[in-house]
């Protein structure tokens, strides 16, 4: 187990290196002088441009800059936002919890809804229940989240006045964004759960369980579902990364605080340190979540643990 763990952890190192190299290159690849572009809304003197250039260490050779970038990032220093003049790390720390909350809530919606729909569809193959749940999944996966979000706002917030449309904070503010975010992932999970369940339900041990006279819900819940979930967990983990990215859109639609708002403001305002910082944090989160998923396999499936 420990060897497996160590292998997985070591394998993330080159990935993280690649990620930081890519993020770092953003600034180098921008056409024109990034400093002038960053300051284009300000009235500046050549001295100020020179000062910012040296503050950002853009006057040093690229490898030195990259080394500094990595070393600072490791120490938690991602520079200072051009736009807000606050440390990028502080901005991210202020906004990360909101994004994490939303992503987890979206994941919860996706998990509960997706697995339930998938199980219902598999357990009722060739019935209208299967048709209904798969139709719902199809709608979920085809609907762009910004559109779904606006529909939910118009329906549940504006017409029915059930839930607030905007803002962070309490649970009521989380419901609509979480549904918007989770529905797409739920659809994918539903289809996957269904097919995985169908496969497992054909296995002999399920027939045995049924032959022993076990109640159908026990057969499905205890025997089939646990085994059907392994591929689902993989996708679940990958979906978490997707959901993190999805929060960017959802946060904008619902005017919630979060990393998505940081990065969109950053992009619109050419705030390179901010964009680099957020991309790095999101990429690292993605890598870590994948690592976590790998480790969860080991828990779910002993064969992987000892391989």
């Amino acid at each position: 187990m420990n060897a497996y763990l160590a292998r997985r952890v070591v394998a993330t190192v080159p990935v993280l290196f690649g990620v930081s190299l890519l993020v770092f290159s953003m600034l180098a690849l921008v056409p024109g002088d990034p400093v002038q572009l960053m300051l284009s809304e300000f009235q500046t003197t050549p001295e100020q441009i020179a000062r910012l250039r040296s503050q950002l260490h853009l006057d040093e050779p690229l490898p030195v800059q990259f080394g500094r970038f990595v070393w600072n990032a490791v120490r938690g220093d991602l520079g200072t936002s051009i736009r807000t003049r606050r440390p990028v790390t502080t901005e991210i720390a202020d906004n990360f919890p909101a994004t994490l909350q939303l992503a987890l809530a979206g994941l919860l919606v996706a998990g509960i809804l997706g697995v339930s729909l998938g199980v219902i569809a598999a357990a009722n193959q060739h019935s209208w229940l299967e048709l209904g749940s798969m139709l719902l999944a199809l709608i979920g996966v085809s609907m762009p989240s910004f559109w779904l979000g606006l529909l939910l706002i118009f329906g549940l917030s504006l017409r029915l006045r059930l839930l607030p449309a905007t803002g962070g904070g309490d649970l009521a503010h989380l419901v609509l964004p979480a549904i918007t975010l989770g529905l797409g992932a739920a659809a994918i999970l539903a289809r996957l759960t269904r097919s995985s369940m169908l496969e497992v339900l054909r296995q002999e041990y399920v027939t045995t369980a049924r032959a022993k006279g076990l109640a159908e819900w026990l057969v499905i819940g205890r025997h089939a579902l646990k085994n059907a979930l392994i591929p689902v967990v993989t996708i679940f983990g990958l979906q978490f990364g997707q959901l993190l990215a999805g929060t960017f859109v959802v946060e904008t639609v619902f005017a919630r605080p979060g990393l998505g708002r940081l990065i969109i403001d950053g992009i619109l305002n050419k705030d390179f340190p901010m964009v680099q910082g957020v991309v790095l944090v999101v990429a690292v989160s993605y890598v870590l979540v994948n690592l976590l998923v790998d480790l969860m396999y080991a828990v779910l499936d002993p064969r992987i643990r000892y391989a």
Partner: protein
Amino acid sequence: MGRVRGIVRGLPPALVALNLFFTACQSQPPASAPPAATTAAAAAQPAPAPNTTSGQGGSVTIGLDQEPPTLDPEASPSAITFYITSSVGETLLYVDENRQIQPWLAQSYEVSDDARSFTFKLRNDVTFQDGTPFNAAAVKWNLDRVVDPNFKAGSALAQLTGYAGTDVVDEFTARVRFKDPFVPFLIYAGSPYMPMLSPTATQKQADQVNQAPVMSGPYKVDEWVAKDHVTVSRWDGYKRRAPWSDHDGPGYLEKVVWKFIPEAGTRAATVESGETQLATVLTPQDLPRLQSAGLQVVSKPWVGMPFMMFLTTTRPPTDDLNVRQAVEYGIDRDALVSALYQGIGQKAIGPLTAVMLDDASLHSLYPHDTVKAGQLLDQAGWTPGSDGIRNKNGQRLEFSLNAIDYGGGPDQSNELIQGQLRQIGMDVKIKAQARPPWYEDNYHCANNGMELFLRSGELDVLYAAFGSANVGGNFNWSCIKDPEMDSMLDQGRRETDANKRKQVYLQLEQKLMDQATVVPLVDQLSVFALRPNVSGLKFTGNSYPLVTELTVK
């Protein structure tokens, strides 16, 4: 990233561009402004019957499209900051809704004959929200701070072009000096980009000034929850009457919450549902629905330069005056307004918006006339080809239009212009690109045209757009270097007589239009929707909202 593309499309790209651009200048000196060269008649106005804010209360939430980068008005290049701080800070003078200069922190002012120095007699009863007194030393500290190279100033810096220093003449008299004549400073002193910050509090605060600046106005900043809202609350220490106000003391409402709601559809929905009581930056699609739902829609034209298309004068084929004039005739501004700006803009008349400078001579310039446009192109040697596009010496008449693409395609007006100019045989190639290369191209005069607008309350905004010194920088993107225009721009900075000054800029506008350096398209409006029970929204002379008179029934 298909989903992201969708949402970014929701943000009108032009709008983003403009708010961040150059909010640098201020309101136009009105024809009836006090003669600048003499001691100002800006003495205290007779106060209307005492009317105080006691007994009022409540709060409203206002939906904004963006979060400000900072609330330090001296640091911010973003218009959004001034939406909020206009009711929090006080400036030396105040340019009112009719663009008249009123006294505020200065009871009167005097301009030297050479228009290089401005002496302000300050009120002696003003304290900042931290209890420290406002005086001439505070004025000096603030202005010095803006030009300090270690402080990255925002829009405020352009207001102090050529600043030579401030003399503290006595405790309540400050003299601001410039290296060159700089009449625009009078309007800038009355614009919201340089309200007075408490030197004591600001020095103590360090970076915290970006979150909660300490000033002297009717409201104070309570809290800023990042990416969510800024709350300002009534400052009960405010005993004066703000220049626009009908009462002594701070605002009527206890609190005003500025909530950041980037998506336009969501913003409109919140004011319709009552989650917010006011909302701004609304789309033509949402306005009719809001009105039919019983909401009030209040609009105020923006000051500065309209939404326009610069024509590059140094690059073929637009280096030819005939071609540029043909473009002017070829564009149907009425069609543009009715297609894209219903309720949020009106047809522009010149390089300055109509509220800045209006003259009958500008209204008749370049009516939509494709025949005339064709004649001009004929004269220039461009003859119609078989595919409808004109040719000259085997060369097609192509026009490269530089456009920003935030991910959802360029602003629709680009395509509209493309379609209109095709009618006169011109093939417009839209060069859609991200903002950094868009700027870069403009600095290098690399295309034939690009759209933008500039917010400013001062006629001198034309200096940024057409001064020779600003080719290769912000914003002389017509790339025109004309000594005569430069001398007119210079004259505008020297002329202290408001009427004569207006004439200078009118002549300059006419010359700019004769030379077809720019196609004025739309005078945009600052639009707010208010719930039926809300009243009292006012605007500064720069079209920023003021919240002190707001009440909720």
